Structure formats: C-alpha cells, structure tokens
C-alpha cells in the first residue's frame, strides 16, 4: 500500500483505539465491573496494520461489555464476587435490609447475592437482550461506510499508479 494510505489507516486505527478505550473505561454497563477492571480491558485494545490486513483487537472479555455477561457455565474462581465487592465499595453503595437471622446485610453479603444473580442469569444487557453500545457505538455501519470511502479514494490512486506502471 502507498505510504499515504498507510498513514491514513494508522490515523484511523489510533482514533478507533482511542475512542474504544475511552468508552470501555468510562461506561458503566450495569454489570458491576469496577473502574480498574474496565481500564484493564480498555488497555487491551489495539490495532494492527499489515500490507493486507487492518484489524482491531482486544481482550476476549471485551465483547461481554457490549452484549452482556452470559450465565456462568463452568465453575468460577470467585472473580465475579471480588469485582462486585470492589464495585460496591467504589460506588459507595450501602447495603440495606437484613438476612434470615435478622442481621444487617454487609457489603460482602450483598456482593454474594449480586454475583449469584450474575452467575445464574447473566449481566443486565444479556438479560435484556440489549447492546450497551460500548463497541457498536464506535464500530458500526457508519464507520464501515467511512472506511469504504477512505479506501476507495486511496486505492483508486494506487490502482491508477499500477496501471500507469504497467503501461509504461
């Protein structure tokens, strides 16, 4: 690809990574993921440009921020409960109510109930069959149209150059 095409695609890649990272780090998708974990996910986003391929990549878990966490299939390692507890503390959520013994519910107990629901029924976007827009707000049909326009312009120039060389 021409240098100018590479530069355009590099700028597009940087812009997309920046927009995605920002949305992933700052959007609370209602799945009790603490900010530090969202920032780790955001940091996993990158792009790669080769002579034949342009790709955006990121952590496998990223898509759960778009479509919601599915119900748990395998035995977990307690990570969900830890995240929920961290989220409760981060957001300053105060547990209300009492347990079956009449004792006030503490943060740990609340985290247990929330994580149990997440394990059994999945995250809120999954339960509501809704996309959060964390990814689809950036990578969507409108973007594809913009990329197509960019590439059409770039490759028209390149093809013209190849034809000129071929006929020279």
């Amino acid at each position: 690809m021409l240098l100018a095409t590479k530069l355009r695609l590099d700028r597009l890649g940087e812009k997309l990574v920046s927009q995605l990272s920002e949305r992933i780090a700052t959007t609370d998708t209602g799945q009790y993921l603490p900010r530090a974990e969202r920032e780790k996910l955001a940091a996993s986003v990158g792009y790669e440009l080769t002579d034949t391929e342009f790709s955006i990549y990121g952590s496998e878990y990223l898509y759960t921020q778009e479509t919601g966490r599915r119900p748990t299939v395998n035995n977990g390692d307690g990570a969900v409960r830890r995240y929920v507890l961290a989220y409760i503390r981060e957001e300053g959520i105060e547990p209300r109510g009492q347990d079956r013994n009449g004792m006030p519910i503490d943060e740990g107990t609340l985290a247990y109930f929330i994580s149990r629901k997440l394990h059994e029924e999945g995250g809120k976007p999954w339960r509501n069959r809704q996309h959060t827009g964390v990814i689809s707000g950036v990578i969507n049909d409108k973007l594809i149209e913009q990329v197509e326009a960019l590439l059409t312009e770039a490759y028209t120039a390149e093809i013209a150059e190849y034809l000129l060389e071929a006929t020279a």
Partner: protein
Amino acid sequence: MTYAALEDLIKQVALGILNGAGHFHCGNDESLKQAVEDHGYPVIHLDPIAGTRNIESGNKTANIALGFFEQGGEDTASAELQAIYKRQELASAEFLSMLQEEDGIGDITVRDSLVRNYTVHQLTGIACEFTLKLPINLCF
C-alpha cells in the same frame, strides 16, 4: 509547473540532502521494495504525486507524501528507534528548508508522522504530508 517537473524538483532536492549516502525513490510500495533490495538504506520515498486542477481559475495543487527512512525492525531497541526518528526528522527539516527556497514553492505546512516498519523492509523514520499550490504555466 507540471507534476513531472515537481517530481523531478523533489528528486533533485532529495539527492542533494542524501549527498550520495542513500537513494531517492518515487512510485508505489512494490517498486519501493525493489529499490530497497537494489540500493539499501537510507531512502527518501515519494508516493506518486496526485493533485487537483481547477481549469477555470487555473489553480493547481499537488498532494505530497514523502518518507525519510532507515532500516528498522521489530526488535529495534527504543534508544536506536529514537535515534532513527531524530536523524530522519533532521533530514526532513533540511529537505523542506531547501524545497521552500525553490522558485514557485510557497509556504509549506507539513503533517509529520513517525513511521515504524513500513513494507517488508521495515522502513522506519518520518513521513511528511503536505499540499503545494503550484505555479501555473501561462504560456504553453
């Protein structure tokens, strides 16, 4: 000034900067690969010039994408990478300064981008993109 004349002007300025230590290339990435195979590094590369012409007003512009490159690589140490960027930024500054002194070339505003590992030869350095308003030939 025709596009061909502009290309020749850029080539002459580039060769002046290189002063025998490197080569100039104009063309697509395929011919660039061959040029690097044949002549090595460093290389000043120019994409084929494209532009716009307004026949009625006689305004003509040329879009320039120019690269100042050395050999990089996936495992290039950070210090060496910075040294390449610095050398090639200085080379590009010298080039632009000389180009601007040429007749018919006005002020140049450049968009710089650091480039790493362009093409299979892992060309690394700095790319400069700018648009030139070309003087119009009144006599043909």
